[in-house]
């Protein structure tokens, strides 16, 4: 089974956000694989192994530092990595998904997706990224490639050219069957991502790693110009320090009810 996993590198969720000249400072920040994409990488490895063979390629759009995230995925057990690194690719979901679609054989649903000449059976991505959080890129890619998708999956198995997925829809569970090739986005609960092992890390160094630019993808800068523009970035107003109530439990409960009604006016 030939599997492609979309991987985005993100800020570690525990990082404090510091703005310098209106942009998020990356000074000394720790970067990780987007947690949802970790589930996707793990699922790719599990599905390859369940199929008794095939290949997992991890694919990303981003600057050179993203190579570290792809190396981590290789150390987990992915087979090959492709990084699309070109500063001319715009910073929005439209631009990024167009670049990914081009790497997978183009947009418009003209034939099944391919990577490096080989047909792709399964595409995996994350439900959303924990930094920008748009939840767009993977689903856009499916639409651009003309393959069906199932978003936010919590269970997934494939055999005989079809897949069965369970998807989380606001707490309800939808069971969906879909022919391959298809794209799936990973939701929490899909699996438990493994940690890279030491031998895995050693092996990762020798695995194929390709870097592509716009020219390799046959795209012009116009094709990947962004359609949205950030016009401001700010930290949210800090919450004013709260108030601890005093007294015995009954007094506190009564006081809270009064405060919510008269002061906060929420009831």
């Amino acid at each position: 089974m030939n599997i492609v996993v979309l991987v985005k590198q993100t800020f570690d969720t525990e990082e404090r956000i510091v703005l310098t000249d209106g942009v998020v400072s990356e000074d000394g920040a720790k970067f990780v694989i987007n947690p949802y994409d970790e589930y996707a990488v793990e699922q790719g490895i599990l599905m390859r192994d369940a199929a008794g063979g095939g290949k997992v390629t991890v694919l990303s759009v981003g600057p050179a530092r993203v190579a570290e995230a792809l190396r981590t995925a290789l150390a987990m057990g992915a087979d090959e990595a492709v990084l699309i690194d070109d500063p001319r690719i715009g910073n929005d979901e439209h631009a990024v998904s167009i670049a990914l679609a081009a790497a997978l054989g183009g947009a418009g649903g003209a034939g099944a997706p391919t990577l490096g000449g080989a047909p792709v059976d399964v595409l995996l991505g994350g439900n959303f990224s924990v930094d920008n959080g748009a939840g767009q890129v993977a689903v856009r890619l499916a639409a651009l490639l003309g393959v069906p998708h199932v978003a936010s999956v919590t269970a997934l198995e494939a055999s005989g050219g079809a897949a069965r997925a369970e998807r989380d829809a606001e707490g309800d569970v939808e069971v969906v069957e879909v022919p391959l090739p298809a794209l799936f986005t990973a939701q929490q609960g899909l699996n438990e991502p493994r940690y890279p092992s030491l031998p895995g890390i050693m092996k990762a160094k020798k695995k194929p790693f390709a870097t592509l630019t716009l020219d390799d993808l046959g795209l012009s800068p116009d094709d990947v110009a962004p359609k949205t523009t950030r016009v401001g970035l700010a930290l949210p107003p800090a919450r004013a320090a709260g108030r601890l109530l005093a007294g015995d439990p009954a007094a506190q409960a009564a006081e809270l009810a009064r405060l919510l009604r008269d002061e906060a006016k929420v009831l």
Partner: protein
Amino acid sequence: MAAPKTWLAFAEARDGALRQVSFEALGAARAAAADGDAIVAALIGSGVAAHADALAARGAARVYVVDRPALAVYHPEAYLAAARSIVQAVQPAGVFLGHTAAGRDLAPQLAAALRCGAVTDVTAVEPGGGEGAPPVFARPLYAGKAVERRTAAEPFVVTVRPNNVRAPDPVDGAGPADVVAIEPEGAALRAIVKDVVKKTSGKIDLSEAKVVVSGGRGVKSADGFAPLQALADALGGAVGASRGACDAGYCDYALQIGQTGKVVTPELYIACGISGAIQHLAGMSGSRVIVAINKDPEAPIFKVADYGIVGDLFDVVPLLTEAFRAR
């Protein structure tokens, strides 16, 4: 003066009623529009035409409807075909949807099909100006630790987070809706929805609830959620949970609030026996008023809470329920 534009809001029904976020999507369209622009609405589903008048009462000048039994449950390909047909008929400058399970799935597909930009999970809209200044959309980044403002080239797609954008007030005596039935383009339906296991029907939807009472590991058992449910019922709210409580098996993951769970922004959030880990805060720190009940006065949740009670939740929560029932 720029030529008048049309802005399109998709409405969504659940359990036979329009979701509040549908009206908020109309409100977002209104806020983005300039004077003289038209606001229209769309409905996709089975039996949904019945909701058209409610949309007209909130200011939709026209309601485009694709109503057929096959659309009873959300299906990515079928809904995309219907949405494309409506967009084709309307030619809107902007499309607005709720940031719901369906909206989150449909919006990126539609944007890709239109090769246009999309701004998702929007919490505020600054109006565009009559002289062609574009509307600006605010959205949280880094799980609420920053807020960005974004514009988009027209046409664009926007999803609005429930409970954040003001819905237009219903107008008394608004006439019946001007309804346009749309015949959708054909679509290859490759995915098959085999089954829908309802876990949340009949309950107040967490992401839209005005009051959320949440329990953490401090509730100690599945039964420990009973007093929280009683408090939520008294306040007309919904019950949520921390991952700690879900991991411990006290409740279903459907209730989890946080970075990897649901994001809620209710008027009132009551956290019971929750420590306040950063990943939990990511899902609830945008709530208007936060109350924390925790035995540990050093619990980080008190740093974001407007009101804190240091105490045992099993003493405090029933007393609170009584105090609210007494009002």
